[in-house]
């Protein structure tokens, strides 16, 4: 850890946060927010949280920014001035923020020092993971082993959260009938952008490599930063890239809504299903070691490792499908181009 670096990144982060809140153009705000996320990603790396950094890069700097831009594209860039009640809500916001800040500062006084290796958090519970991960699971990346095994139950619901979000977006935005009750202007049709041959060509060539890399991230998550979630997001991003450079119709043509939903379900079901399989085999839910009964030539430790690989695959499939689905719904405002 290099404290000078830490300090400068943090300073930049605060500047970005201020800017993105203050700037009057929503598109700029979205872009600055992308930069903010990217700086965050650097900060994580600098603090040794490589998996978090990886996720932040793909989700925060990547997908979130795309979603913001898509949303701004569908609505407006303008930020108006509040006409009424400006003072009150500002006061409420200010008081709440200051109060929270004050309370947190008081709490901060009692914190053990930053980066101290002998804090309670570093001495209780977590040493077990560091020392036992190889012994218990044969997975050197302890983030993966904690994520997918020790606290695998959290992760299952984490996947369920993203699935829920995808479904929620469909539930809120999707319009099936051509003539729905809303009489406001139809959303901008994003496919009507001007065709740029160079961009399309480059994107097309890139996609296979991106996807290959994504698969590597999924498969190699045991040994290096990455795993199902990051891989899934990258896979999804590859489709989004196509959708941006061509049009969303092209993606809907390849990954129809039904398929998307089905993949999302299957992904989470793989996860929950493996857990349930453990239960059927007589162990507790998500206790992969019992899988050694059905997997050929595996002992209990390797069974855990394989179990994790299985659920990572499920996560990747689900996340990919859901990320694409969220993007398409937001960018088409729920009215898929295909329907028209």
């Amino acid at each position: 850890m290099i404290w000078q670096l830490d300090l400068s990144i943090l300073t930049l982060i605060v500047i970005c946060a201020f800017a993105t809140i203050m700037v009057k153009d929503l598109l700029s705000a979205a872009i600055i927010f992308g930069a903010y996320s990217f700086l965050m990603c650097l900060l994580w790396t600098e603090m040794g949280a490589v998996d978090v950094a990886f996720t932040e890069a793909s989700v925060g700097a990547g997908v979130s920014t795309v979603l913001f831009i898509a949303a701004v594209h569908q609505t407006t860039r303008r930020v108006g001035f509040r006409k009424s009640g400006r003072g009150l809500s500002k006061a409420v916001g200010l008081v709440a923020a200051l109060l929270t800040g004050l309370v947190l500062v008081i709490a901060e006084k009692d914190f053990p020092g930053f980066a101290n290796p002998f804090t309670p958090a570093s001495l209780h519970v977590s040493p077990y993971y560091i020392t036992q991960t190889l012994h218990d699971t044969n997975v050197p990346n302890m983030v993966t082993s904690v994520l997918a095994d020790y606290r695998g139950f959290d992760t299952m619901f984490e996947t369920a959260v993203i699935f829920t979000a995808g479904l929620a977006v469909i539930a809120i935005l999707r319009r099936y009938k051509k003539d729905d009750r809303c009489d406001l202007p139809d959303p901008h049709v994003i496919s009507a952008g001007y065709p740029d041959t160079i961009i399309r060509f480059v994107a097309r060539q890139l996609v296979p490599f991106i996807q290959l890399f994504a698969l590597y991230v999924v498969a190699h998550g045991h040994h290096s930063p990455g795993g199902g979630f990051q891989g899934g997001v990258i896979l999804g991003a590859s489709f989004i890239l196509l959708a941006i450079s061509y049009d969303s119709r092209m993606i809907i043509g390849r990954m129809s809504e039904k398929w998307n939903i089905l993949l999302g379900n299957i992904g989470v079901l793989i996860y929950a299903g493996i857990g349930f399989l453990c239960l059927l085999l007589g162990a507790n839910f998500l206790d992969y070691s019992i899988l050694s009964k059905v997997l050929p030539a595996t002992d209990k430790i390797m069974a855990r490792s394989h179990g994790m690989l299985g659920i990572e695959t499920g996560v990747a499939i689900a996340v990919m499908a859901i990320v694409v689905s969220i993007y398409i719904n937001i960018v088409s405002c729920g009215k898929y181009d295909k329907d028209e």
Partner: protein
Amino acid sequence: MESIISDYNYWIYILLMMIGLYAMLAKNNLVKKVIGMSIFQTAIIVFYVSIGAKEHATIPIIAHGHGHGAVEAAIDVTHYANPLPHVLMLTAIVVSVGTLGVALAICLGIYRRYNSLEEDEIQEQLQ
């Protein structure tokens, strides 16, 4: 100097938290509120990841060469960053992107019906 640095990380998270909270409550534009929400959530991530940081520690992946079960005894706990907060924050990031998606979807829905993203204009139309 060290103590200032140690505070610095926590100061910043508090500052980000305040910025986010202020934006969520005081901003008039819905997308700005959503951005505030994202900043608010990342502030918490800063807090957690800072808990996991250790001086002179490396990333929480055991270096290659440590064979299966052979050299556990040699693993020095202070040598690796605390992996637990990282795991928790992976989940938190996913949650925040999920919330972001839903919030933006609602924003779009609102815009289509009220043709505005400004809170006061929407309230006017509601009455």
